[in-house]
């Protein structure tokens, strides 16, 4: 049985190649989370940590309207920005994938450039645009459309949403573009041939068949938005408190690692649950047939 020799060799190679990755993830992702998880059951006594397991932290957070509100707010922002990114990115991805020929790579590079500049610079650039004496207000006043600056443009949920959408658009755009690029034009032509108009082609063919790209983009944008506390802090003004910044405070100034850990774990699990619900909802919907099909 020479074949088993080859099989064994292959398995050995696979093991050698995957082991470092598995170890890395275990050491730097699973282990810290595990430590965090165990801390979430401890108590803090002034400056020392009492290692006596209790559910107090979880109880306190679940019964606190503030924390519940913060978690919910994070999820809503995540969902809202992901949806906005999807709505903006779809036409763009479709255009780049199916209408642009020569300048395709140039255009894609151009869309990536904002990511090179760093969070802070982008955020401050938007401050210049949206501020009371900023570009947009000045322009509107110069045009005579408004008499005094629109204040809610900056330091508001509006400003936060705009900048978050701007920041994370590429993470939606690229998976979508890759999915649409891979779509054979003949599917679209066949749909038209069979009497489907443009919108029908989109909803019946393009959307289901680019579903995996949409789900990938949604997950990335959602997770990144929930985790972003810099943008809300710098753009949101009084609305800038987020659950992430609360966690940050717990581990920093408040020195309450157990509560921070519990809050982090609650956020993590509610995110996971929420994402699972959204993806499952899409999967069951008529547009999810493109993903559904793969598992036969």
């Amino acid at each position: 049985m020479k074949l088993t020799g080859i099989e064994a060799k292959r398995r050995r190679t696979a093991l050698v190649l995957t082991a470092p990755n598995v170890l890395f993830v275990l050491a730097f992702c699973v282990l810290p989370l595990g430590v965090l998880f165990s801390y979430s059951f401890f108590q803090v006594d002034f400056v020392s940590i009492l290692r006596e397991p209790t559910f107090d932290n979880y109880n306190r957070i679940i019964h606190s309207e503030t924390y519940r509100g913060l978690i919910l707010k994070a999820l809503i922002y995540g969902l809202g920005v992901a949806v906005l990114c999807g709505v903006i990115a779809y036409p763009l991805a479709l255009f780049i994938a199916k209408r642009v020929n020569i300048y395709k790579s140039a255009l894609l590079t151009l869309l990536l450039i904002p990511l090179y500049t760093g969070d802070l610079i982008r955020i401050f650039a938007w401050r210049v645009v949206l501020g009371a004496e900023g570009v947009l207000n000045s322009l509107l006043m110069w045009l005579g459309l408004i008499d005094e600056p629109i204040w809610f443009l900056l330091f508001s949920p509006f400003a936060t949403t705009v900048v978050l959408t701007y920041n994370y658009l590429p993470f939606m755009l690229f998976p979508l573009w890759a999915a649409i690029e891979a779509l054979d034009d003949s599917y679209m032509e066949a749909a038209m041939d069979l009497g489907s108009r443009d919108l029908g082609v989109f909803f019946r063919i393009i959307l289901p068949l680019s579903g995996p790209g949409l789900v990938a983009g949604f997950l990335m944008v959602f997770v990144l938005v929930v985790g972003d506390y810099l943008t809300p802090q710098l753009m949101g003004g009084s609305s800038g408190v987020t659950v992430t910044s609360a966690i940050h405070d717990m581990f920093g100034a408040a020195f309450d690692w157990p509560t921070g850990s519990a809050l982090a774990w609650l956020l993590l699990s509610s995110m996971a649950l929420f994402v699972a619900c959204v993806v499952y909802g899409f999967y069951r919907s008529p547009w999810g047939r493109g993903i559904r099909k793969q598992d036969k």
Partner: protein
Amino acid sequence: MSSDNSPTSSHLLEARGILKDYDTFRAVHAVYFDIPHNCFVTILGPSGCGKTTILRMIGGFESITAGSIHLEGVPIMDVMPYDRPINTVFQNYALFPHLRVEDNVAFGLKMRRMKKTEIRSRVNDALESVRMASLARRYPSQLSGGQQQRVALARAFVNEPKLLLLDEPLGALDLKMRRHMQVELKDLQKRLALSFLYVTHDQEEAFALSDIIIVMNSGRIEQIGTPVNIYHAPENTYVADFIGGANLLEGRLTEFDSSARRGHLETEIGTVEAACSGSVKPDEPASLCFRAEEIGVDTGIGGDISFKALVSHIIFQGSSKLVEVHTGKHKLIAKLDHDVPVTVGEPIKLAVAKAKLRIVHGSPVVAKEIH
């Protein structure tokens, strides 16, 4: 071109001078052709000859640069694909991978907002007629090439189009499956009493299926005719060579009677008097054309034109053999019975019946020398 002598306006589709330019490249040069009702028409040509472009212009996927297309007398140049009563079977089938076989077939009917019960019965009938009803719940990826082909056909004709376009639909199938599907296609076309416009580069396929063949070459139509017509009365050297590789001998037209369409051609094997194809003109190149199977060993019977040649290759083909011979600068292929004694390097005396000879327009295609 149709079997009855109906006036031109009764054609299903009329293409008048349709032309396609891509930037500076002219893919299709103003071509004219008709598609009669209930007729199997094939566009035959090598890859890149513009045949698929013509199909796509009729389907509405490419605009036409100039010319007109009329369907039952109505111009359709500005009609979007979804409004044309024409359906296409795509080269790669283009079955929607996320829809089951039955939903693929129902797609067009749903777009027309047909009643659910009606859709179900029509889909079932269509799948029944391509013997795919038992696999209606499958996804395309779970089907073999031939099965996908049948579903693609059903998805197109279930809409009862006036014209069905087929873009090399058998190209991806193996030889046995192809033969099988050819019979089914022809059968289906007769049963549906529908016109098919079929595109292929395979001449045997074109012969097996078509009522009318349109032979194309680099964006131009070389000849339109029935398979018999195309094979036995090629217009020019291109058609003669492309269809079954006829023997061609270049010659000089010494006498030409344009009304009787007969002429005298001076060639290597002597001056012959033969029928001329419609495109033969005095002072333009002309060649003598005859088929490999029309050559025999010279028996000295009158009515034949006989010539000497040197045998250079013999290819065994079972009951017969192909013998390549040289006559001066030309190479000829003769199909001889397997028991005719032939030796490579030896001279042989061959003959062709005068009635089989034909003078066609053009010089022998150079490309033939390569293969």
